[in-house]
């Protein structure tokens, strides 16, 4: 409790709140999470629009139907867009500056946000081709933490037209 200086009025009080939750990954995310433990990216396909979603979240967001199957995707892809983060954020232990990028895996129809490393920040660009760097097999689990980061894989940059529909 902190009082306003020179006053007997109570101005603030602290109420620590701790709540614990049990999350359910859901049916669609299960093969995806199991895949991460095995060093694989596994998405699902919409039976209506045929688009491949990773991570699958249970439904095709445009058709409102359950996505299906287990689509194993390459662990490489394209940086569609990115930003360079120059300030530390709570809970982040990554050395700044770091690159926060949207990576579109080959074969996927949706990009997801990833860390890009092993390249100076000022050399990252839209269209950069990258590959996943997995943590050692014994450290992998059903979590995105199994992917340490993405790094350039040396392929020539993707043509803007090949990914502009995903921006």
């Amino acid at each position: 409790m902190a009082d306003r200086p020179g006053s007997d009025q109570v101005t603030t009080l602290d109420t620590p709140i701790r709540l614990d939750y049990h999350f359910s990954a859901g049916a669609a995310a299960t093969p995806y999470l199991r895949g991460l433990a095995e060093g694989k990216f596994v998405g699902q396909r919409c039976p209506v629009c045929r688009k491949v979603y990773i991570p699958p979240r249970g439904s095709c967001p445009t058709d409102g139907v359950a996505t299906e199957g287990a689509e194993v995707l390459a662990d490489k892809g394209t940086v569609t867009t990115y930003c360079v983060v120059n300030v530390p954020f709570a809970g982040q232990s990554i050395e700044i500056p770091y690159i926060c990028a949207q990576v579109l895996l080959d074969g996927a129809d949706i990009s997801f946000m990833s860390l890009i490393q092993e390249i100076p920040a000022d050399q990252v660009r839209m269209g950069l081709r990258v590959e996943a760097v997995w943590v050692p097999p014994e450290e992998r689990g059903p979590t995105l933490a199994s992917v340490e980061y993405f790094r350039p894989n040396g392929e020539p940059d993707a043509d803007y037209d090949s990914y502009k529909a995903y921006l």
Partner: protein
Amino acid sequence: MPAAPAPRQGRRPVAVVSFAQAPNVRRDTAHNEVELLLPVIGEVLGNLGITKDDIGFICSGSTDYLIGGPFSFVAALDAVGVWPPKSESHVEMDAAWALYEAWVRLQEGDVDTALVYGFGKSSMGDLGKILALQLDPYVMAPLWPDPVSLAALQARALLDHGLATERDFAEVAARSRRSALDNPKAQVAYDRSADDLLGEDYVVAPLRRHALPPLTDGAAAVMLAAGDRAFELCERPAWITGIDHRVETHALGARDLTSSPSTAKAAEVAGVSAGPVEVVELHAPFAPQELVLCRALGLPVDPTGAGSTSVNPSGGPLAANALMAGGLIRIGEAAARIIDGRVSRVVAHATSGPVLQQNLVAVLEGA
């Protein structure tokens, strides 16, 4: 085409034309919220032979604190598939209030149908602590009073005022769970006598286990349609002829917990007393609250259910208590009995907040 009964409020008649709910279960670990909702929304549309493209407005009810993260309604919308973009809104309230918002929106006349849905998983966190956060953050919440204890205060007040007996609570529970035997979506159903239930230990005196609702994971959806569109979609639409909701103060000490003036006021505006009430679905999570609500609605208080009004034929919240969907389920259950032709005038009630702080009352009628 038959004529819709004239609504007491608003500019055009609006009806419930379809209702669906997920099985109410203690713990659904197999599905996330989207997967919980998908079949429910599929069913509520499928009942009418329409698709998401036929929806004019969408409104949902849910709360972040149950799910343990901000913006829980955002992902849930993926269960509908709002593409092309749709006119859509969300209330951080039980979905019965989402239905109210949709009912208002349909008065405008530019859209004729609305999808309303709500969902809540009580299994994810410690409900006793979570619901304490609904109280005054400065003087009440830091004491972490749990909802069972607050309901026990209310029950005690009823006993001390001579307005109920512990046997009444047991009769309400016995009747509700017996009714739930006919409800395939119910979570708790049994055939036990009040005498038998009175043998249970107190959880928080004067409440025994039977007077408490179950912890439930669930979801529900309703389709509303206005004017002629309702008759096109449904042979016997459940017309909302009156609907209103009122809130009371949060200060428990300033309320008479043995009465529910907000329910009484909403019932007056909705026109509950304008005709016979064949069925009432009450959102009374704790058994004693049914008695408070019956009085407020001007209905006979008969815990055994011998009166002319059938109280909670679905089993009510004592049989399944999906938070944020429970109020909408009351409206859906009541409406379903008109849609299937069993009755012609019903009342549905929904509540929100600690010990019946906020209440909604709807009157639904067949044409």
